[in-house]
């Protein structure tokens, strides 16, 4: 437990009068009692499993048998495997595709819903719908659109004269899961960016316009720098959700064709819940957490560098 002298001296109410000694005692204890269930759940079922995950990742056997210690064997096995290298590449392609498509769309949508009065609320609600749709539901909607007889291949075939087999070709399968995820991700990004836009004082734009600044200059020097923090949060959240996503890809392609859309998340999903391969899936779980930390560090560096300027 962290405790600075200052905070222990002011233990109890943030403000307000200090009552009788008995009341003070209960007020010192009360916050701990109130937080006890939360702390218990977090430690027993989040922090402890994370620590166990590290342990299980060094074990070789599936549950039931006597576990054998294999050290970093599972990791060595994974990284030496072309299959897992493919999983990593698929994850990066998936993440890159989702960010490239969803972030500009989210910015655009955020500006649109922020700039108009009464009607903005309606469109904000409308644009948020993908975000409250279950991944498996949107997976069905997207499968319907891209499957052989669906509207997307039909239109494309009419335009190009070629066949478009979205769920059969590797590249088109990746494109399908990226489009689906970008569609699901942009609403949350839009919401966060719009919250940032709402904090920018209108006078900044007015004086910029008086100075003859172009739209682009206004965006470059006012809008973008002042929404940088919200953009950071949006990109970070979507990165982490996208890296760990297995539900929506599994529902659309099951990782196929072949391993084309089998990201690290989907591989973990299969190893853990279908093949019950605890050692390997724990190692993949550790790698997935590390991957998230790497991106967090990377974004923090970019954010820090931007603020230092």
């Amino acid at each position, binding site marked *: 437990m*962290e405790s600075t002298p200052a*905070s*222990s001296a002011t*233990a*109890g109410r*943030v403000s307000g009068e200090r009552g009788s000694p008995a009341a003070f005692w209960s007020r*010192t204890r009360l*916050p701990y009692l*109130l*937080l006890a*269930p*939360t702390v218990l*759940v*977090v430690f027993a*079922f*989040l922090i402890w*499993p*994370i620590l*166990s*995950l590290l342990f*299980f990742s060094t074990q070789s056997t599936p549950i039931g048998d006597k576990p054998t210690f294999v050290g970093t064997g599972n990791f060595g096995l994974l990284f030496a495997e072309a299959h897992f290298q493919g999983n990593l590449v698929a994850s990066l392609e998936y993440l890159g595709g989702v960010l490239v498509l969803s972030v500009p769309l989210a910015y655009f949508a955020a500006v*649109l819903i922020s700039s108009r009065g009464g009607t903005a609320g309606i*469109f*904000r*609600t409308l*644009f*948020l*719908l993908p975000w*409250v*749709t*279950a*991944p*498996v*539901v949107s*997976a*069905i*909607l997207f*499968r*319907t659109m891209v499957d052989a007889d*669906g*509207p997307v291949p*039909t239109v494309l075939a009419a335009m190009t004269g070629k066949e478009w087999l979205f769920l059969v070709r590797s590249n088109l399968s990746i494109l399908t899961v990226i489009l689906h995820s970008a*569609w699901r991700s942009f609403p949350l990004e839009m*919401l966060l960016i719009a919250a940032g836009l709402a904090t920018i004082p209108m006078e900044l734009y007015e004086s910029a316009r008086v100075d003859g600044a172009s739209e682009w200059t206004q965006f470059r020097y006012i809008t973008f720098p002042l929404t940088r923090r919200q953009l950071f949060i949006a990109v970070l*959240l979507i990165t*982490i959700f996208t890296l*760990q996503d*297995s*539900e929506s890809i599994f529902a659309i392609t099951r990782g196929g064709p072949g391993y084309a859309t089998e990201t690290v*998340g989907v591989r*973990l*999903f299969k190893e*853990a*819940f279908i093949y019950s391969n*605890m050692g390997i899936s*724990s190692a993949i*779980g550790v790698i*997935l957490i590390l991957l*998230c930390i790497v991106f*967090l560090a990377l974004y923090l560096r970019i954010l820090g560098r931007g603020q230092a300027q």
Partner: protein
Amino acid sequence: MKTRYSLSWVAIGIISLIVLGPFLWGLKTSLMAPLNIGLLSSGRIHLDNYRYILSRPELGRYILNSIKVAAATVAIVLPMAVAGGYALARYDFPGKKLSVLLIILPLVPAISVLVPMIIYLRRIGLFNTLAGVVLANIVFNTPFVVWMVRGFIAQIPREIEEAAEMDGCSPLGALARVIIPLSVPGLIASGIFVLIGTWNNYLYAFAFTTSPDLRVLPQGMLAFIGSWGTNYGGLNAAALVAMLPPMILFLIFQKWFIQGMLAGSSR
């Protein structure tokens, strides 16, 4: 200025189309005869697909399981979040800084934590039970929702509570008689947040249950994708039925819901 104005309407139209397209196409497909999903195919609207899925006995069971899991999760997470959120919003105490974990932990990939949890649930006999699924939903919702409720309670002016205590209310009495009634919108938003997340999730149920009888709705739909193949009329009808409850709740409570999300994630 005028062209700019109409351009922005065009942009709004395009984004609306991107957002609504998949839903509208799903609706159309669900109302057409099977094998009639082509782009230009038309034909009379009929409800056979809905009749078909609603007559399947397993759909009712999946819905019931989903209701049980979602209701139990909300009923347990919300009181925990009120207690924890109140403590964090109103008290200073040694160790409070650790509460930053509540916004860091939701970033840990849930799927990684599920792997060791399977082993524990087997040990305590909760593997392959709905209780195990509820537990997972509680665990992954609690940190963020405590933080969300903290935000709502912090917005309530402290003076109201102090007045109540002046009149002889204990801190817990003030929580029950002042804080909770005043944070009802926030609590509804938090409850809906948990409800939608739980209703939509199939990962935890997939990880912790093996019996088809224990499937929750989205997990059942995943099985439909596997077994019905390209019966897109039936699949889309089921998808739209599954989508309805969270969509309706969102549309009714969206204002509070959005406030809660922003309060939770941007502070």
